[in-house]
């Protein structure tokens, strides 16, 4: 009888373990939202970089390494955007023996940029650089909603590898999500049509993918290299571009400094539009789809305010 009770207990425990949700850690809020869309109730997702913090300059904390404990799947942006994540993974591997699944090349490791058509690749940056110090291209690929197709595909692959039992569930979630996105892209494109080809200026070259999808024209950037303030000649050039092309909007993210943007706005009469580069960047941008809703609304509001 005793043995029977123990056996039943073990069986129950393993059943509840199987029902336990899959722990997933992402570097950014956008990836978290996309993992939630694919994983549904089966996954327990956390993001490392809080909303509205520059993920490129994030410095991991001890609690981040602890968070990776018992994590089955990790998702990163890639393209040198979250380089610090490598060291965090190395730390996690040191602390626990079973972390190899989330190591580069492991079953639970997802580089979201795999198979993305990368923009602004400038090799060893010999040519005139246009905004990013990255040799591997512009990393802001999630800002093209169509890229959600590829990113969620990468996520689905890893989830199904780690948890094959629920593969069909993940796949159905992804297809439903992509259908929603597809309909939304039509709506956003229609809304942004009046802004097409209308020149704008941005604080930093975060918007290449967004601009390509919705055919927006970013004619210049205030900060050309991360962390280096603009030179007077560059500001003069921007002012000339803004006057010539009748630029009416200067786009910046909430965490980007306001002073230089305000200076240009005062010189040219343009308005500053605050857009969210990531989920949570604006209060209205609560998930991946509302991120675009919020940005489209902000751009339209700036357009109508004149």
């Amino acid at each position, binding site marked *: 009888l005793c043995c029977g009770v123990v056996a039943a207990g073990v069986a129950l425990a393993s059943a509840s373990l199987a029902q336990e949700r899959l722990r997933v850690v992402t570097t950014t809020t956008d990836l978290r939202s996309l993992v939630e869309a694919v994983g549904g109730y089966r996954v327990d997702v956390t993001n490392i970089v*809080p*909303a*509205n*913090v*520059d993920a490129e*300059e994030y410095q991991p*904390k001890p609690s981040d390494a602890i968070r990776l404990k018992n994590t089955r799947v990790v998702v990163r942006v890639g393209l040198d955007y979250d380089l610090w994540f490598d060291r965090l993974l190395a730390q996690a591997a040191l602390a626990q023996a079973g972390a190899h699944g989330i190591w580069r090349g492991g079953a639970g490791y997802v580089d979201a940029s795999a198979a993305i*058509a*990368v*923009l*602004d*690749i*400038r*090799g*060893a940056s*010999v*040519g*005139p650089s*246009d905004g990013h110090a990255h*040799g591997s*291209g512009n990393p802001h690929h999630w800002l093209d909603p*169509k890229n959600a197709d590829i990113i969620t595909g990468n996520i689905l692959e890893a989830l199904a590898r780690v948890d094959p039992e629920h593969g069909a569930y993940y796949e159905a979630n992804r297809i439903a999500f992509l259908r929603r996105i597809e309909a939304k892209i039509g709506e956003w494109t229609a809304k942004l049509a009046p802004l*097409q*080809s209308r020149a704008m200026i941005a604080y930093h070259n975060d918007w*290449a993918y967004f*601009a*390509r999808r919705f*055919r*927006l*024209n970013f004619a210049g950037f205030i900060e050309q290299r991360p962390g*280096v*303030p*603009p*030179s*007077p*000649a*560059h*500001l*003069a050039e921007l*002012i*000339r571009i803004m006057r010539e092309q009748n630029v009416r909007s200067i786009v910046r993210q*909430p*965490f*980007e*400094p*306001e*002073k*230089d943007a*305000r*200076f240009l706005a*005062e010189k040219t009469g343009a308005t500053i539009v605050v857009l969210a580069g990531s989920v949570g960047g604006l209060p209205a941008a609560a998930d991946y789809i509302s991120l675009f809703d919020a940005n489209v609304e902000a751009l339209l509001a700036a357009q109508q305010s004149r």
Partner: protein
Amino acid sequence: MSDAISLLWPPFLVALCLIGIHAYFGIQVLARKVIFVDLALAQIAALGATVAFMLGHPTQAPATYGYSLAFTLLAALLLAFTRAWSSRVPQEALIGVIYVVAAAAAILLIDRAPQGAEHLKQILTGNILTSGVSELFSIVPLYLAIGLLHFGLRHRLSTAGQRSWLWEFVFYATFGVVVTSSVALAGVLLVFSFLIIPAAIGVLYADTLLRQLALGWSVGALASAAGLAASFALDLPTGAAMVCTFGVTLALAGMARPFLRGQAVPALKRAGMVARCGLAFVLAVSALQLMLAPRADQPLIDAFEYAFPALRTAYLNAGEAAVYGDAKLYAERYAREAEQLNVTEMRSRSQGEALDDAAVGRISSFLKSYGEMRKGEEFVMAEVRGRARERLRWPLAAAMLMAGVALVPGVASLFSSRRIRGM
């Protein structure tokens, strides 16, 4: 040109105002031997602003300024009391500790707030280029008032004789107020240059406070104008360009001193001796590097090759030169074609016919291949050059060594130059 002037005159005015008060404070700071006190006070003020930010006050609010001021005054009190805290450890040590602890405490605080890091960065890295005349309206009356106060209390605030802690407190408190506003305008690096460099040049050449000030102000104004002009002409970030111009100005002022004091001949002799010995040392080390690790970087040879490209053809044989030239041509071609693809793709984002996703994907993978191919060609270039250098390392290094020895003015004069330097 009119672009340049319309962009540069507001920052020039701001620079003049900042130099006006900082040159004076700089002379006082040099006399008190508390060189880095401005960094400590600026960091304390930033800590105060961070606390205000954490409590929910916006950046420009009076409450934020109040917190900054309160923190600065507390630090001033601390500095005034600890002027002679120990004969064993200089006050500069305490100033350094205040700086690092304030910086670390601010980091701990902002770790709890989204956007906190950016907020802190904005307090400490003002950009003089985008500072306007409107900002002058708030700082000029403040600086005038503090200047008048110091003029009225000039006997009490002077560094001569016994100083009471109360007047030291007044000094540090007013200095803190000045630094807090100037750092937000021009950034830590530039404010430090405004503080120390004109004052140092003034003290170097003049004896009375008035003359030191006049000299510091004129030199500061000239250096600011030169820095701003260089920043425009050479397309450089303004603050950093100005700081380097100030550094060069100080170096020039230091070098000119012996000439103005009528000690030109011995000074020139000494400088020549130092230069020859330095050059000989560089040549010897380069020769050693070439002998031991011919494939490693050779900064001296690289610099010469950069200045005189013909030099390279001199040591490559015909076959090597052909391979090198080919690789160079191809590398340049790949770079050009990649750039053209990039431009085409970028134009297509908003103009003309849109490229479909497949086309963009193709361009993207072409660009990656071009990058790899260019890296391959660059590897070939480095390899050819490295092999040639390896082949020629013994005669080349021997020639460099001989040139180095020839530069040394003989053992006897080497010793005498040491004696002169030691004096």
